[in-house]
């Protein structure tokens, strides 16, 4: 039990083999070091010389101590708490499905869009008010309300009701309130844009790539592509809301994988702030026989394409185009900074419910969109309650939620508990359930694990290789500054 007779005390860490015949060693708060095999053997055999450079390096990162133990534990405890700050506020992201109606019928849609004229799929104003009251019941100081659908603009009156009611309640609550509308942009008009500008609402949209790729799967209900209308409205929206008033996401399909460069070039040409290279979610329509081919591609293919894409994006940055890759940016913040990141999709315990929650058009509350999807297909396993019938506590202390939290702490999950990438990763029990049949999931056959492991290791390799300019680019993303500012070539306007 005690190592009093040894020259030094080992502090907790996790390790695994890393390219270059080394060990990747990571401490409890994500600080990492690469050790050659021999040094690692000597480390765990108490054979390192406490005066040596490598020992001091390990000591500086709290992997070992040969003097005091208590103050090291104090430091680690403070940093551990800091890394989990995302838990402090509880639910900050609130997604509201104001209607299931949509004028598009994208092939990979997992929101199961309904025909645009069927108003029974709209959220009623009464339900909307109750949704807002639940939202503002959250202890979080920062509230982000994301309007989703279908196509939220088809029920714009309820969008306005929610914004109005939220701001009214906020006069007393004084939280930081943000609104985003997730829209396909095809129904944008001058009055909607004027409203958004007045209320400080930003738009999120979808752009899968250049026309040939975007129009393959993002189609109108009438069958034709949506690209041209998207582009026209994008210009209009930007002219009113500002250049960064619209932020697009892309979804990678089989066809898009081999054209990542063209997709990135499209984003760069339109001078968007960033791109998020997203793997398609295998739910809803994506599972239909008609399109399965396009969406059932192996995760390995996505990872390979992602790696090439990231290198290309770094190249673009160094050549003067400041495009951020959103996914890498979040992971890099976890690897390189002592701070917490709020990213609902990859957290431990899962962000579902406790950091982000979704309210369906009829007031049903689910911990995440996947859960809502499952309910649509008949499995209401993750239903938390309804805003019209249940109280805030009923919903947010529901046994369903508690179970999700219990099974999603990576520290206790098989396959995760000894993985050194633990501090950077997370779990998705709803996804495990949907794809693998149980909440805990099976890591060796998990695409989710495979993807994150591969990408995190790739980023660690890039950090280790430290090719010229790469770290400058990464830090420009993490600190949200230009390359010149990071290099000290220009004064910081932050």
């Amino acid at each position, binding site marked *: 039990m005690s*190592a009093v007779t040894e020259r030094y*005390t080992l502090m907790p860490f996790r390790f695994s083999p890393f390219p270059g015949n080394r060990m990747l060693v990571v401490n409890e708060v994500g600080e990492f070091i690469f050790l050659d095999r021999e040094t690692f053997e000597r480390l765990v055999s108490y054979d390192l010389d406490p005066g040596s450079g490598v020992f001091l390096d390990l000591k500086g990162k709290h992997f070992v101590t040969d003097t005091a133990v208590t103050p090291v534990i104090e430091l680690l405890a403070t940093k*551990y*708490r800091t890394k989990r700050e995302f838990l402090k506020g509880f639910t900050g992201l609130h997604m509201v499905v104001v209607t299931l109606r949509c004028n598009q019928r994208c092939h990979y849609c997992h929101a199961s869009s309904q025909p645009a004229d069927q108003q029974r799929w709209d959220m009623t104003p009464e339900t909307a008010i109750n949704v807002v009251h639940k939202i503002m019941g959250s202890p979080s100081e920062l509230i982000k309300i994301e309007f989703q659908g279908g196509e939220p603009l088809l029920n714009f009156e309820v969008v306005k009701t929610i914004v109005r009611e939220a701001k009214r309640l906020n006069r007393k609550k004084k939280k930081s309130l943000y609104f985003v509308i997730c829209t396909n942009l095809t129904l944008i008009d001058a009055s909607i844009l004027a409203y958004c500008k007045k209320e400080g609402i930003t738009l999120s949209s979808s752009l899968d790539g250049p026309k040939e790729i975007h129009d393959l799967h993002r189609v109108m209900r009438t069958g034709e592509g949506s690209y041209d209308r998207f582009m026209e409205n994008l210009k209009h929206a930007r002219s009113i809301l500002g250049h960064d008033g619209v932020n697009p996401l892309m979804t990678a399909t089989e066809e898009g994988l081999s054209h990542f460069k063209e997709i990135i070039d499209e984003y760069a040409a339109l001078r968007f702030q960033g791109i998020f290279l997203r793997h398609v979610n295998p739910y809803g329509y994506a599972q239909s026989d008609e399109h399965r081919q396009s969406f059932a591609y192996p995760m390995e293919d996505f990872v390979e394409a992602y790696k090439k894409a990231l290198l290309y994006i770094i190249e673009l940055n160094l050549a003067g185009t400041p495009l951020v890759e959103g996914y890498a940016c979040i992971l890099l913040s976890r690897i390189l900074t002592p701070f917490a990141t709020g990213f609902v999709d990859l957290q431990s315990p899962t962000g579902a419910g406790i950091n982000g929650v979704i309210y369906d058009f009829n007031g049903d509350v689910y911990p995440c969109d996947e859960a809502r999807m499952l309910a649509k297909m008949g499995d209401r396993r993750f239903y938390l309650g309804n805003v019209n019938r249940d109280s805030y506590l009923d919903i947010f202390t529901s046994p369903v939620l508690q179970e999700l939290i219990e099974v999603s702490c990576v520290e206790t999950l098989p396959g995760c508990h000894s993985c050194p990438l633990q501090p950077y990763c997370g779990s998705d029990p709803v996804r495990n359930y949907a794809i693998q049949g149980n909440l805990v999931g099976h890591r*060796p056959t998990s695409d989710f694990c495979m993807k994150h492991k591969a990408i995190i290791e790739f980023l660690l390799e890039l950090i280790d290789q430290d090719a010229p300019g790469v770290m400058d680019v990464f830090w420009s993303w993490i600190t949200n500054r230009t390359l010149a500012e990071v290099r000290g070539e220009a004064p910081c306007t932050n």
Partner: protein
Amino acid sequence: MDAKVKRKPGGFEVILSKALYEKEAVFAATYALSGLCRNRVEPAQAGYVKVTLEFLDSCTDTDRAEVENKFMNELIDQQLRLDLEKRYGAIRRLIVQQAFAPLDNLKAEVKRIVGRD
């Protein structure tokens, strides 16, 4: 002997000394390979345990050539993790506790658990 490997068509068997490899380590290593193989863990002769690994259909030829190595390395790493956990597992728990429910006298608790403060 600590580990004896017998190759079979479609897989291989490993006899492991229980004195060297604890149950948790054996199961953890077997679990790690369960994406590539069908696995079985059974008692063998006194003091030994037998792990049978049969390649799944999805296991490619490249994978098959590496599985044996992968398993043995994983086994050693998992056993090392168990050993290390015995040394610093209590410290880890102290860190988490101190982070969210700070102790009144951390120093005394550290001295008690680690043997030094």
